[in-house]
């Protein structure tokens, strides 16, 4: 059997597996939808300010599309209309915020997850593979980081570094690598005593090959799956920090800071609880679906990567 054909059957088997599982299909569909929204954000919600006109009488282009333009002077939220389908809050268009917030969500999620997971893998695999006092030292450091309550640590760090989306990301990376480190260390400890590793050692195979062919393939996937699931929850954490006023600056296109705007309106007007429902619903729903997408994708990946379930 040729290598190429084998790869194809493998790929086809994987694809078939994904498409047979409705929740996996839903997860990937949602994720693809968010990716499309993020890529085509400038077309879906044009980054222009209708309140300011340039010399030719056309609306002016925004300097920074991530800063939502103020398009109305109404101090109370404005309900959805044909022009502003998700309504307006604090003078800003919720639709615009949700669309451009998708980019922010991907940016935060991917960057933080990739950096913190890579760092975790590095620390965890050194710790697990070499053992001894190296393990002892690295794991105690990990314990120290884990013992600090995350929100408290993030708040202290953003107070020191200052506000802003990049500062939040630094805080989330610095206090977000421990899970991956612990996971890969535990897996390596388990796998390195397996008999197929000993069998390879008995053959005289080099350490490098043993790590690449036997140790990593049997330890890395749980970490990748955990990372994909964390991608969603990180966005919630970032939103939480934004909600507390520690994250994105005022008016930044970020789901969390949009929810921050609703703080005064969340209980509705007197007599009608749900009068400002759209202010919470749209950014909130975007966040829920984003997290759901990553969780379902994580589940699907777990099924695909486990050879025992093939």
């Amino acid at each position, binding site marked *: 059997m040729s290598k190429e054909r084998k790869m194809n059957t493998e790929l086809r088997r994987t694809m078939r597996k994904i498409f047979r599982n409705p929740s996996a299909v839903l997860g990937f569909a949602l994720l693809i939808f968010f990716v499309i929204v993020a890529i085509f954000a400038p077309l879906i919600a044009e980054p222009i300010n209708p309140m300011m006109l340039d010399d030719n009488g056309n609306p002016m282009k925004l300097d920074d599309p991530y800063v939502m333009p103020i398009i109305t002077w109404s101090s109370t939220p404005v309900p959805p209309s044909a022009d502003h389908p998700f309504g307006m809050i604090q003078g800003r268009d919720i639709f615009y915020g949700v669309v451009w917030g998708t980019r922010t969500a991907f940016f935060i999620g991917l960057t933080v997850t990739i950096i913190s997971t890579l760092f975790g893998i590095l620390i965890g695999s050194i710790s697990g593979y070499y053992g001894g006092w190296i393990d002892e030292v690295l794991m105690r450091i990990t314990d120290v980081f884990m013992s600090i309550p995350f929100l408290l640590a993030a708040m202290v760090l953003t107070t020191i570094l200052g506000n802003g989306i990049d500062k939040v990301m630094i805080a989330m990376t610095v206090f977000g690598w421990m899970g991956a480190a612990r996971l890969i260390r535990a897996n390596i400890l388990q796998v390195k005593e397996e008999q197929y590793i000993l069998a390879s050692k008995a*053959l005289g*195979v080099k350490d490098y090959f043993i790590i690449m062919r*036997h140790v990593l393939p049997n330890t890395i996937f749980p970490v990748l799956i955990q990372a994909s699931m964390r991608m969603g929850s990180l966005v919630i954490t970032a939103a939480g920090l934004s909600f507390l006023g520690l994250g994105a600056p005022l008016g930044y296109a970020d789901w969390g800071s949009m929810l921050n705007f609703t703080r005064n309106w969340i209980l509705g007007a007197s007599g009608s609880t749900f009068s400002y429902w759209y202010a919470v619903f749209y950014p909130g729903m975007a966040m829920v679906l984003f997290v759901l997408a990553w969780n379902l994708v994580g589940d699907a990946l777990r099924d695909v990567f486990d050879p025992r379930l093939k």
Partner: protein
Amino acid sequence: MSNNEVAEKVQNNVASKDEVVARVVNLKKYFPIYKGFLVKKRVGDVKAIDDISFEVRRGETFAIVGESGCGKTTTARTMLRLTDPTDGKIEILGTDISKLSREELLPFRRKMQIVFQNPIGSLNPRMTVGQILTEPMLFHKIVSNQQEANERAVELLRMVGLKPFHMDRYPHQFSGGQKQRIAIARALSVNPEIIYLDEPTSALDVSVQAQIVNLLLDFQKNMGLTYIFISHNLSLVRFISNNVAVMYLGRIVEMGDVNEVFDNPIHPYTKALLSASPIPDPAIEKKRKRIILSGNVPSPIIRPNGCFFNPRCPFRMEQCDKEYPQTKSISENHQVACYLVDKREV
């Protein structure tokens, strides 16, 4: 010694019936015990193997028996240099490998292979059978390309009673017995001369055990393999091996021709072991007197004074508490380390 010289030496060793292929001389393996946080202090040793010597001849099956924790598996792993010996010599095909470097060891790695007890853990779950079998051949350059390796892997599968289409399957798709066949095929893939069998049948059910044992015997006859067989199944040991060593707490207490040792055991521990294995005849089994040992195996860290077996020995004498008995030959191929030898001679 350069790599090539070693390789040549290994190759040029002419096969002869009485040739010693493996000799272990005063082999010791201690595992240090450390205590303390960050700054560790060595507080003692687990003496897993304590001064053992034996010889294995070409084409024979040398069995090592004993209860759990007596050092059987450590002996095999040390001889394979999966762990480094504390002291002593391991001569494989005439060369002491106990201090060779990783590169110098390579030609010997080819000549020695191991089949483990647990067939589930001994195959990488993320590799297909084809990958598992071709990896060793390609690594040791026994074949020149992937296609040749595949052909040889199919041939190996056929030899162990599996089919060519099993090449693309994953280990979890096989039964325990089939997995053990794959493990045997992997061991054979590099044309070894010595195979360590670390309880290769104890994880399998009885009907499959017989198949695997017959397979191993066939290979031994056809390829002139030497087996070092680790087991606690004494009837199996008697069936397949020529010589046997009985280990207790890291030392060999009795060693020799399997029939001589089993028919005429001298050491009370050997007697107790033999007595513990059932006889497949209910009439005899019902009547026979069994020696039941009291107590547990002493800790290998703090061992009893004198003979290690004295706390459990029904024939304990005064001298047993004072000094560990010397190993004495009672016939050409039967050695015992027990004071009862002298009594017997008197």
